[in-house]
């Protein structure tokens, strides 16, 4: 086990020790301090990979888990996984430091919080470094589960529980879809490793399961990354503590789907279905998220929808970037490589500024007790540092210079402009929609960013609406957002440092087929007067205009019908499904034994008679039958009469007597067929049974002792006749199909083998004595059961009398 795995499993291993630390140390010091060391050490460990990975090296580590099933934990460090690994641990460290000041040492159950958080971190690290598909799936589900636990951290609140349930249902649905897709991929290529799949591309791409596997994998990616229409869980997940929202629901978990799409681009990219689904859904999500974010008054909900919209942007860029796979090496391919680069760049940028913004909201919530934009205002003077950070984050999200969001937004515009002229996959007709939608969505984004920053910090300060006395946040709480905010500005001025060392290697892993030269060129070309800049100026102009006139249209947008929202659909669908299931179950689970017997018998008839007819099983062969004697005929006649009497008896005692007669005639049959032991036993047992029936008859309740015929029901008649017919046909057909000699001849040596002249008894106690033993125990159990039933009943009666 290499040192790599020591660091990979560090979060999960250290999670085990959290309760101990909490119990003995929490009174002295906030245990978050210990926890923060975990991601920090992994972050520092991962930093040392940067030079090698930037130089084009990759690392592969393996530990065997179930070698016989080829299930080994294969980890693969390349640019893409390193980018995610650094994001997870870096943002993780900052979030934990933030949480130390956000989560109270006294009031909160901190050990739960940090166990879940570390569990999530370990799962996320495992996810991004896994090369084995099923191991990847395992970590994927672990992120869903730990996210579920974190969202419902304040489990005494109803909304937390509902949000957690919703997130779990949707992400696990996608997870199952993804598992199906993975299994299809494994079936196609006969390997578990993603890298080996990329090496065998032509096998996959010419396989009939290619499209189904793609759809299933995309379902998983879209649900996890909150794409349209699966994004509805993300706003509800905002019931989690703010550090969680900041970490999981902006920086890491929601990017697991992005990671998956990026990882699978070499496998599925270049296909029109992949392009249209990823880019199309991405851009729809972008528009939907930005439009819905405008309607929110709660700051966290606004950020949640903005996360959805930004994830849509990244997804769209990845879809456009997959065209590079289609074009391959060459000028057009190089153009679309930039889109993938932009996706990675924006992914990184989004993690920085969205983490910042969530932490800012947490600070506002913590210091004012309010999160609703309608109660807030004028915080600029009171919380200047928070305001500065929020401004940096907000303007970066809006895509303004000098913040990193500007760069990635420019690249996004460039990519959508390029794709509208690509002229493949039907893009020549509706490709023009890409830049238009992107531009409109960017205007909305600009407006909600303005609302976020200036409605909260600008305007009138109204302390009477706030629940606490407002003052600037403590430095510990400000530390993490300040670091992230500085990073936002730093990346704007020095994007190439990030590009060269982190993003380009990641690009290499997404598009391995492109020549190395195509990666380097574009990164520095971020200046110049072009179409993109014009679009950005348009965004700013119209955005400011819209922001100034918010009073006129925003309320109308917020008030528009709730019935058409996806949430409404989800809730209706869920309750509809429940209602349908209940009504379905109630319809056939009637509680009436009669109905269940009807199901059982009709199923029996359908299956047996059906298979008899289907496989031509009905063949009679009477050649080997013995002759029918007159005694047989007489007895059968008698039995038929007795059986019919049971059916048509006008009272119960008659039915019992007829049943007894039937039993006696069966024992007569045993006589005729030369089975004295059976006849003896049958005689005794029949008598005892008849007596027992009479006993039951006597104990029938007085009130409803209506002595009537059995009521006639056509269904019952049909089923009973079909049943009898089936069994008769089966018996006759089986009789005609004897394949082998019976083994009776063996038992005829009973005297030599067992010293018994009575073969039947020799079989019962010698050859197959085991059956007899168990039959005896059956009788013992029955006897005990009857005793207990009777005894308990009389005991209860006694109790009732004493009461």
């Amino acid at each position, binding site marked *: 086990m290499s040192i790599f795995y020591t660091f990979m499993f560090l979060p999960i291993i250290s999670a085990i020790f959290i309760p101990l630390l909490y119990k003995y140390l929490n009174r002295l010091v906030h245990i978050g301090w210990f926890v923060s060391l975990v991601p920090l050490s992994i972050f520092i460990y991962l930093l040392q990979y940067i030079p090698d990975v930037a130089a084009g090296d990759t690392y592969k580590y393996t530990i065997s888990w179930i070698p016989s099933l080829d299930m080994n934990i294969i980890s693969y460090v390349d640019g893409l996984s390193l980018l995610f690994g650094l994001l997870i641990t870096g943002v993780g460290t900052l979030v934990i430091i933030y949480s130390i000041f956000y989560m109270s040492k006294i009031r909160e159950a901190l050990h739960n919080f940090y166990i879940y958080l570390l569990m999530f971190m370990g799962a996320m690290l495992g996810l991004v470094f896994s090369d084995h598909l099923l191991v990847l799936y395992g970590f994927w589900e672990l992120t869903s589960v730990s996210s579920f636990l974190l969202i419902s951290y304040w489990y005494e609140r109803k909304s937390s529980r509902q949000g957690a349930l919703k997130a779990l249902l949707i992400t696990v649905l996608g997870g199952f879809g993804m598992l199906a897709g993975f299994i299809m991929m494994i079936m196609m290529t006969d390997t578990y490793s993603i890298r080996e799949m990329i090496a065998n591309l032509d096998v996959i791409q010419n396989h009939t399961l290619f499209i189904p596997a793609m759809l299933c994998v995309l379902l998983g990616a879209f649900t996890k990354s909150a794409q349209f229409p699966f994004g509805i869980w993300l706003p509800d997940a905002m019931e989690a503590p703010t550090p969680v929202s900041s970490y999981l629901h902006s920086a890491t978990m929601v990017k697991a789907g992005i990671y998956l799409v990026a990882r699978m681009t070499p496998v599925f990219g270049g296909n029109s279905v992949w392009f249209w689904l990823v880019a199309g859904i991405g851009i729809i999500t972008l528009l939907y998220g930005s439009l819905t974010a405008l309607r929110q008054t709660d700051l966290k909900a606004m950020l949640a929808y903005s996360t959805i919209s930004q994830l849509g942007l990244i997804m769209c860029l990845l879809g456009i970037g997959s065209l590079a796979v289609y074009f391959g090496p060459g000028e057009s391919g190089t153009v679309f490589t930039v889109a993938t680069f932009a996706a990675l760049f924006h992914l990184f940028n989004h993690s920085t500024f969205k983490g910042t913004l969530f932490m800012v909201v947490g600070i506002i919530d913590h210091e004012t007790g309010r999160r609703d934009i309608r109660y807030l205002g004028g915080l600029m003077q009171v919380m200047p540092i928070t305001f500065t950070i929020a401004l940096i984050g907000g303007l970066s999200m809006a895509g303004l210079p000098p913040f990193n969001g500007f760069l990635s937004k420019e690249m996004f515009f460039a990519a959508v402009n390029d794709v509208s002229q690509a002229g493949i996959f039907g893009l020549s007709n509706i490709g023009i929609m890409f830049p238009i939608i992107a531009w409109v969505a960017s205007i909305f984004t600009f407006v909600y960013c303005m609302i976020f920053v200036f409605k909260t910090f600008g305007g009138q300060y109204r302390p009477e609406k706030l629940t606490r006395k407002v003052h600037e946040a403590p430095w510990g709480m400000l530390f993490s957002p300040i670091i992230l905010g500085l990073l936002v500005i730093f990346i704007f001025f020095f994007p190439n440092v990030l590009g060269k060392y982190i993003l380009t290697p990641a690009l290499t892993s997404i598009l391995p087929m492109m020549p190395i030269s195509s990666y380097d060129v574009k990164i520095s070309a971020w200046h110049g007067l072009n179409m993109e800049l014009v679009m950005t100026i348009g965004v700013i102009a119209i955005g400011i205009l819209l922001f100034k006139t918010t009073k006129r249209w925003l309320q109308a947008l917020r008030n528009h019908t709730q019935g058409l929202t996806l949430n409404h659909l989800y809730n209706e669908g869920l309750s509809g499904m429940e209602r349908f299931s209940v009504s379905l179950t109630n319809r056939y689970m009637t509680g009436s034994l009669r109905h269940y017997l009807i199901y059982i018998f009709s199923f029996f008839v359908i299956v047996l008679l059906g298979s008899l007819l289907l496989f031509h099983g009905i063949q009679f062969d009477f050649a080997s039958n013995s002759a029918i004697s*007159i*005694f047989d005929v*007489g*007895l059968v*006649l*008698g039995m038929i*009469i*007795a059986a019919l*009497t049971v059916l048509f008896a006008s009272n119960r*005692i*008659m039915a019992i*007597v*007829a049943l*007894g*007669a039937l039993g*006696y005639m069966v*024992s*007569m049959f045993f*006589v*005729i067929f*030369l089975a*004295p032991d059976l*006849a*003896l036993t049958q*005689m*005794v047992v029949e*008598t005892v049974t*008849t*007596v027992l029936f*009479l*006993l039951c008859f*006597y104990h029938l309740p007085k009130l409803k002792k209506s002595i009537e015929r059995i009521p006639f029901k056509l269904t019952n008649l049909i089923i009973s006749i079909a049943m009898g017919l089936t069994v008769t046909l089966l018996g006759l057909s089986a009789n005609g199909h004897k394949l082998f000699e019976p083994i009776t001849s063996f038992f005829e040596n009973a005297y030599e083998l067992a010293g018994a002249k009575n073969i039947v008894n020799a079989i019962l106690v010698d050859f197959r004595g085991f059956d007899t033993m168990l039959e005896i125990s059956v009788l013992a159990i029955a006897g005990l059961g009857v005793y207990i039933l009777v005894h308990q009943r009389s005991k209860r009666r006694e109790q009732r009398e004493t009461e």
Partner: protein
Amino acid sequence: MIFETVLITALCILMLAILANLYRVVKGPSSADRVQALDSVGINLIASIAVFSVLLHTHAFFDLILLIGILSFIGTVAFARFIERGVVIERKR
């Protein structure tokens, strides 16, 4: 040969008797009639098993003859008690 024919004839007659008794079991009219008929079926069964044993030259069914004798007695007594008192075995109270 003649002996066998006689035996088979006897069996057939016994069978007819059983069928006739069964008619009484079915028809009633009272429970006592049915019990009586059933007892008679038992006796006829004993007879037919005996004849059958002779026919087959076996003494494997002699136990059965005795058993039917006992059971038919017990059964009839039980039925009689049931019709008379409503219970078969009375409680010790």
